[in-house]
């Protein structure tokens, strides 16, 4: 019969249409929130989702996974009296590995000796050029530059970030990437312990 295929197709659309509402109703009966709740968004990105599963941005936002990357930031540790101890040593690896070459670093030189000091005088990232590849964070040997989760940075100006916009505390880093942070902390502690053990062993030998 001509038109049977079309009807068959439409039955799929019909089913999809009701699926949206059956999910809504069953959630409502159970007293759970399918919309505007973390649980609801998580359900709508899972394999069990049915019907329409649009996320109503900006009222709700997708839950980003830990590895999500969007534009880099610089990590500082909080020292005594709230002093910012910048992890960056201005070694320049991030600037060298950056594919679109959007990282600009001025290295500090000791005015007395002229030798380089391991802190950056100036650090600029042109966020309009940054392609979010994550190489800088991946190859930084000091865990000083990391990829951010904050993705809504649109503005009316050009986004050239200086130190004051780039610096974020290690606490923030631990918050957005807990697994990575813990892994790195452990590695650092192990390294320090090994160093201490070596230093202890050295004089006796």
């Amino acid at each position, binding site marked *: 019969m001509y038109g049977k295929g079309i009807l068959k197709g439409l039955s799929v659309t019909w089913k999809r249409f009701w699926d949206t509402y059956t999910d809504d109703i069953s959630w409502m009966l159970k007293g759970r929130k399918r919309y505007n709740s973390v649980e609801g968004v998580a359900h709508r990105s899972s*394999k069990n989702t049915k019907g329409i599963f649009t996320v109503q941005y900006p009222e709700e936002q997708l839950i980003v996974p830990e590895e999500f990357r969007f534009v880099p930031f610089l990590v500082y540790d909080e020292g005594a009296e709230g002093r910012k101890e910048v992890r960056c040593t201005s070694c320049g690896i991030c600037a060298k590995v950056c594919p679109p070459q959007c990282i600009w670093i001025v290295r500090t030189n000791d005015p007395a000796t002229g030798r380089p000091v391991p802190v950056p005088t100036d650090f600029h990232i042109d966020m309009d050029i940054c392609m979010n590849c994550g190489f800088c964070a991946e190859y930084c040997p000091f865990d000083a530059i990391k990829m951010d989760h904050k993705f809504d940075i649109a503005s009316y100006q050009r986004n050239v970030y200086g130190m004051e916009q780039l610096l974020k505390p290690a606490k923030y880093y631990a918050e957005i990437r807990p697994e990575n942070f813990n892994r790195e902390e452990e590695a650092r502690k192990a390294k320090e312990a090994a160093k201490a053990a070596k230093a202890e062993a050295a004089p006796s030998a």
Partner: protein
Amino acid sequence: MATPLTMTVDLVARFPGKVTADSRPGYTGFIVNKENLVEVATAIRDEFGYDLLTAVTAVDFIAENKMEVVYHAYKTTGGAGLVFKVQVERVDPIEVPSLINLWAGVDFQEREAWDLYGIKFTGHPDLRRILMWEGYDGHPLRKDWKEPFFEEEAKPFKSRWPDGKHTFAENKNPFRDNLNFPKDFDPENFVVEKEEDLYLSLERDSLKDKAGNMKTDHIVVNMGPHHPSTHGVLRVAVQLDGETIIGLKPVMGYLHRNHDKIGERNTYLQIIPYTDRLDYFNSMSNNFGYVTAVEKLMKIQVAERAEYIRVIMAELSRIQNHLIFIGMLMNDLGAMYTPSLYAFEERELILDIFEAVSGARMMCNYFRFGGVVRDIPEFALKKIQDLVSDRLPAKIDEMERFLNENEILMARLKGIHVLNAEEAINYSVTGPVLRAAGVPYDLRRADPYSIYDRFDFDVAVRHNGDMMDNYLIRFDEIRQSLRILEQALKQIPQGPINSQKPAYQVRVPAGEAYGRIESPKGELGFYLISNGKPNPYRYHVRPASFVNLQCVEKMCIGTKIADFVALVAMLDIVMGELDR
């Protein structure tokens, strides 16, 4: 592992004095005398059976004052390829005989070599610029050509560190100083006269069929570059007799950014994120092709677990690409949005996996030389398992129920735009389009790379070569991909995910390599020449959609213009890859 490029054919013995073996260290293949190129190429095709000429490209050896044209020929029955080259002196005009009478598939690639290297292919009937515009001055891939905002020959630039004071590029190069105009160029009186060539080339083809018929007026219609059905910025000049197409030429380059030149300025590692931007739906496959080529050159083994992760990612990528294909084909046929959004829903779930694993949904940048960036987290592996075994098979079935018996769809697709096997091979078409024409040529089987030889799957093939088969073969391929995924998920071992130490600069020994993979759109090849420096000397992409587009002219003549819209969707082109 990829099969080594073994020389099963001894061209030197067959053509003494006309062919020499390429004996440079790290290079393979044969160097053919320019005068004997057509003769030798005919023998390669007809005597030795290398019927599929996939890649044609050029290399500028400026130090030796030579230009080289490199051809990669393969057998559609499978196996290693044959590389042959022609070397000519680097003095304009540089002339090489065209192979267009042997392989129609060299058309675009020879035009590209003319455009970017200035090599004239004598005998090519339509040797116009293809990616740059007519009236452009210079040939951008030559080693002595410099782009606007040129800073240094190779990255990393010295201005960024240790004294990197931020400046905007345009402040250094004020407008007008960063462009090269031809001599005697006057913008006031400039008319695009070469544009006529395009229309003349349409006229010439159509006149042939017109002999003896009543004289009617023909209309030239320019579809695109801004047209909703041309998938971005493809422009097609169509000559119409009523509603029937009698001449057709694709015009491209509106998204051209000279990817090859960017690659030659980058270090090997820095190219990886740029390959993401080629076929932006399949960044995983693009990464795969590129690292395959570099690993061939570096002669390194890939970590076992990483091989499986790569296959899983590549197959997921294929599934989501074919889902987009189905959705977009429906959009172009007029089934606006409902099918495409159903397809996008499933794709969304796959992109979530990419995001959890690599950090980005589309620009994954996930592969490294010797392995991958990071391991798949446990929850992502679980999600892949759930999708592969539960959700996707059911959803593909639902998609089939939804569309495949639809009478309107059948009327639009069945028996339209037929491409037979001989034509498809002659036009160097690869991927699903070739397989729908009845040639079971799939690189995962024909020339296995990575670990595809360990999996049990069938090469999807259909035999009519019409639009319906092209559409249905995508469903077959999704099913086969699911089969591969199921096996890969079962077999995936524990272990390291990279055989190399992470390093931001890799040492690549001098030589050449051509790495190719079966991307969802066809053969994706990367041709690399290293001279031992941190940057490749030559970096060339052989994009599947660019080469596949060549058959469009042949397929469209004599059909209706409305079907052409569907054909563009069916070829599954993506402009990021086509224009590079």
